[in-house]
């Protein structure tokens, strides 16, 4: 993929950050460039992946589901089986190792669903660093279990009460905290968003997903998948799932975004369906915003997809038509959540259930000798209470 300028993907990307942060972000970029070419760093990360995070993750043939839907063969890339229960750990271990290399002692992070916060708290505990996590007040309420998990791991969780009190506000608060304390602090950005080098670095660490999947497909089926499907919040699990297939034009890439109550309502987080070009959170990309450039409040049942933007490389992949992006509503995602629980015995994250929901639509339109990879980005324990609430079931006696 050619880029016009470092840190740019077509017209998207860049480094739109306050002058105060430029030296800190540049230091991260320089360290990342060095680490990426350092065999010691790569070995250390590989060891953490294999011995701590439970990599490689399985590529699982979902036979029940494939048979029932009566079309393409569906395979799950089981990122839900990673330590801490989601793909987020891949990126966090990479960045925490980088922070350690830079001599930083304090990790800060935003979190939506809480998965990235839990992963950051975990890495901090493992590596003997402090962790402070910023989480929208609304998300601390709907993901209370993850808040307590972070606290158990020794992190301090700050509920963010500004703005819409969800993920975008948590990102604002984390950047603000970084400007107050840059010297000993490293911001572990949790998705493929933000200023350069974050989108590129997060992709680099998450690419392990498609690197493994590519060889697992060749080994288990003798060929590549026809379609790769992943849910898109900021786009980290998706870019990781796409990365090593981007140069295989026969593999279709599909990002699934949260439509919330529907893309024709204002309770949606479907950036690609409804957004426009803008500059926010350090990057030029697509955003849900007013014609005036005020960032819209967004909505999805999924706290991890409840974000008004998308990583710049996704915006670019859409522009050049290398990937397509489709919306899935709350209702469809909840139905998929229940469906794979019953057919495959897997409780997947509500984020991942968005990808499953699209696979359920697509598979029957394909033939049985075709194959789909769904990136099962996380496990759904954290969502059980919210799903019960959604269904009107009272699980608290």
């Amino acid at each position, binding site marked *: 993929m050619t880029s016009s300028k470092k840190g740019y993907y077509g017209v998207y990307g*860049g*480094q*739109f*950050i*306050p*002058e*105060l942060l*430029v*030296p*800190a972000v540049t230091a991260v970029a320089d360290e990342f460039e060095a680490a990426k070419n350092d065999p010691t760093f790569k070995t250390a990360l590989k060891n953490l992946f294999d011995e701590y995070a439970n990599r490689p993750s399985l590529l699982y043939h979902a036979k029940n589901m494939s048979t029932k839907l009566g079309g393409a063969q569906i395979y799950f890339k089981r990122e839900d089986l990673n330590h801490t229960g989601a793909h987020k750990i891949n990126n966090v271990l990479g960045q925490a190792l980088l922070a350690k290399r830079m001599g930083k002692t304090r990790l800060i992070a935003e979190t939506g669903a809480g998965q990235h916060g839990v992963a950051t708290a975990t890495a901090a505990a493992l590596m003997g660093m402090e962790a402070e996590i910023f989480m929208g007040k609304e998300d601390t309420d709907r993901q209370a279990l993850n808040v307590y998990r972070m606290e158990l791991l020794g992190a301090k969780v700050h509920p963010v009460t*500004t*703005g819409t009190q969800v993920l*975008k*506000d948590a990102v*604002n608060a984390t*950047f*603000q905290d970084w*400007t*107050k*304390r*840059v010297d000993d602090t490293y911001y572990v950005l949790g998705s493929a968003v933000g200023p350069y080098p974050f989108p590129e670095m997060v992709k680099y660490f998450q690419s392990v997903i498609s690197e493994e999947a590519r060889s697992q497909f060749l080994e288990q089926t003798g060929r590549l998948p026809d379609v790769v499907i992943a849910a898109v919040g900021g786009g980290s699990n998706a870019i990781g799932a796409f990365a090593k297939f981007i140069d295989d034009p026969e593999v279709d890439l599909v990002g699934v975004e949260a439509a919330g109550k529907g893309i024709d309502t204002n309770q949606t987080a479907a950036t690609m369906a409804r957004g426009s070009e*803008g*500059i*926010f959170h*350090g990057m030029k990309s697509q*955003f849900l*915003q007013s*014609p*005036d*450039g*005020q*960032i819209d409040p967004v909505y999805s049942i999924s706290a991890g997809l409840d974000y008004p933007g998308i990583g710049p490389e996704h915006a670019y992949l859409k522009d050049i038509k290398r990937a397509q992006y489709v919306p899935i509503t709350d209702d469809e995602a909840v139905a998929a959540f229940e469906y794979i629980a019953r057919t495959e015995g897997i409780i997947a994250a509500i984020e991942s259930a968005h990808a499953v929901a699209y696979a359920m639509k697509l598979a029957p339109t394909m033939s049985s000798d075709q194959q789909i990879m769904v990136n099962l980005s996380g496990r759904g324990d954290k969502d059980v209470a919210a799903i019960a609430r959604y269904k009107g079931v009272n699980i608290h006696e």
Partner: protein
Amino acid sequence: MTVEKIENVLKNGKGFIGFTVAGDPNFSKSVDYVVSLAESGADVVEIGIAFSDPSADGDTIMKADLRALNAGSTTERVFEMVGKIRERTQVPLVFLTYVNPVFKYGFDRFLAKMQSLNVEGIIMPDMPLEEQAEFVTLAEKYERSFIQLVTLKSGNRIPKLMSRASGFVYVVSSLGITGARKKLTTESRAIIEKIRTLTDLPIAIGFGISTPKQVAQFDYADAVIVGSAIVSEIEAHPYDAEHYLENMVQAMKAAR
């Protein structure tokens, strides 16, 4: 009457720059407040264009942005407001906003509008050196100043920042975001001395300055910028802040 150039009004080294958010608490009062600031002695007035996610700002200004947005702030309405201000005062004006509202309006169109309304310059905290090329070229075309921010961490970036600077240089007094602070360090003194070797532009200092005593502390800068303290007065007295603003500006000017 013509608007004086910022470089000239801040030349005597005793400058005062006041900040207020356009449309806080509503658009008609907001015009009055800009005029009050000017008439009480502010040499330059900085007008904030509200943004949904003002990430360089603390609580005080964040809340003011929200009040302005609730009062119906749009970029077009801010321009209308400046038109009304220009009927009453020729004080040099600069905008402070984030890059997205300007980007959505269109860089060229935005700068053309600034020129027609006699707005001298613009500050965009989320447009660093690395991303300025296009905008700065256009700003030159429309003879508008692009005000560079210099921080305690800018270090060896300062010469490059100065090569692009115009209007005045904005030195950020401390780490973090806007908002009143109890104590301010004078770490900025060395930075200002360095800047003086590189430019003849006036140097203003801001972020966290809220009392006449703090104003006096920065006698080594050509001007001080006071934002959150003014915004707090407007928050406390939304519909009759004129008198409070007058007292504040006069006290701060006297401390210069």
